[in-house]
């Protein structure tokens, strides 16, 4: 096993922290959006659907720039948050979390929506005739059935978040220990004379992590299929 320098370990740990917090922060929003798209029909649904999926296809750099406009300390919302609550995103690891959460939100939303749709809405009717009210049905029928989708979506989003680069570097810059995640560390290594070996190590590590988590996501989904189908 290759040995990592302290700076590289710092980047790895930061990446894991940013990604896990991003996944947790995005989860409730992703669940709500998935529930909305899976169960409700309303005018303009196609447009809402498109907007919610936009982070998948938008250039990450453009997303980072948008975030800077909205959440920069001199910008409207960012300034308000900073002055009123002392919350600052720019140049801070929380900014990396925000960028990652937004960019990987669709991964979670899609997986949850699929599992909600495959968990037949007819089960809700069955539960109603058996006396279960809305929250009861959500808690005991919808949620348990959506759980494998939630898990698979969270894992996929986590893996995707580990690779986030453009939005982070644009929004919160490349600060060691604050915002220098794995991809930014690879970029930095390549900019440094003699840094190829470090870049190769980190790239290999990234690939390994991606494979591990994608396999895990697939495993979770298959097990759910075997159990419920």
């Amino acid at each position: 096993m290759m040995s990592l320098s302290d700076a590289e370990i710092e980047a790895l740990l930061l990446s894991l922290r940013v990604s896990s917090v991003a996944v947790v922060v995005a989860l409730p929003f992703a669940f709500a959006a998935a529930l909305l798209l899976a169960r409700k029909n309303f005018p303009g649904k196609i447009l809402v659907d498109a907007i919610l999926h936009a982070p998948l296809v938008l250039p990450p750099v453009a997303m980072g720039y948008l975030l800077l406009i909205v959440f920069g300390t001199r910008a409207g919302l960012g300034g308000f948050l900073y002055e009123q609550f002392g919350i600052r995103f720019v140049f801070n690891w929380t900014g990396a979390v925000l960028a990652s959460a937004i960019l990987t939100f669709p991964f979670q939303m899609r997986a949850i929506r699929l599992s909600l749709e495959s968990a037949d809405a007819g089960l809700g009717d069955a539960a109603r005739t058996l006396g279960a009210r809305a929250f009861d049905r959500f808690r005991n029928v919808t949620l348990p059935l959506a759980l494998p989708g939630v898990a698979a979506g969270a894992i996929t989003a986590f893996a995707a978040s580990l690779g986030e680069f453009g939005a982070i570097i644009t929004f919160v810059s490349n600060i060691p220990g604050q915002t220098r995640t794995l991809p930014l560390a690879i970029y930095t290594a390549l900019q440094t004379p003699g840094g190829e070996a470090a870049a190769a190590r980190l790239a290999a590590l990234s690939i390994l992590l991606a494979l591990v988590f994608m396999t895990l996501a697939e495993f979770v989904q298959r097990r759910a299929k075997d159990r419920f189908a």
Partner: protein
Amino acid sequence: MSVDVRIRHRLGAFALDVAFQSDAPGVTALFGPSGAGKTSIVHAIAGLLRPDEGRIAVDGRVLFDSATRTDLAVEDRRVGLVFQDARLFPHMNVRDNLLFGWRRAKECAGEGEIGRVIELLGLEGLLSRKPARLSGGEKSRVALGRALLASPSLLLLDEPLASLDASRKAEILPYLERLRDEAKMPIFHVSHAVDEVLRLADRVVVLRDGRVEGEGSVFDFAAGEIGQLLPATGAVIDARLEGVRDDGLSVLSFPGGVLSVARTELPPGTRLRVRIRAEDVLLAREEPRAISANNVLATRISSIRAEGASQADVHLLCGGTRLVARITQASVKRLGLKEGEAVYAVVKSVILDPHALRARGALE
């Protein structure tokens, strides 16, 4: 135990306009071809469909009334519904599925009821299994048990057998018969299969194109007297088992006579439903002697109706019980059969539903 249903509803080009009552306990079959509106009626009673207009009441409890704007929530109706596709919760084992409604029922059936329903439906060996590991017939039985344990004041069965093959149906029917005989609440059974209706129903509502075409007892239904398009299928007779005769045959009595059938070990006093198909009845002017058939009944002709180009259905009364014989029009002419005349009915075979189970009679 009365159920009062009056529904008017438009669904696109389809108009539903039905009204019927059921005052007695037991099974009321909602019979009709697909597209007759059966499932819409059942959904309206359960509250899953809100009719444009009408009134639905069970035991005087109003579930829906467009005039007073009453519309009880599905959760509050206490109407059990067994869906065609069972709709078991895939993440729960059979026990948790069964107890889902039981745990939520306000007027909770006692713990003893759980064991009784498990026994009634033969679910003992399935309790820890997940629905994915059940056969179609087992799923239907669990769905039935789940609905029963929610202590409904009315049980709706929406073609619970339709998605099953013949052998699975044969597996479930005896359980439904037991359910009919033991359940305390009225049961509405949606079906488009004549055979099921003859075996299970006490009353029949015939539906066509969103309207009630006719209603009456299962005896009327078997004699083809409900609705215009259904030919007679024969006779349904609820008989009482008297005992075993010297010649080894079991004797059944019914209002108007007795029938002998293949020996059954059920205790005397058991009530059994038997069916006699119209094709299995021959007619004779004089009492036949030296004949292999075990059952010859003295009857009187109540009416003769042409059936198709060459057949005729001869409706007979044997005491208070109705029989139908399907013979050729040529035979009617040759024997000179007329309404009101006495004839002997030779019954070639009696269909005794094989798994018929005690209860109804034993309780009386």
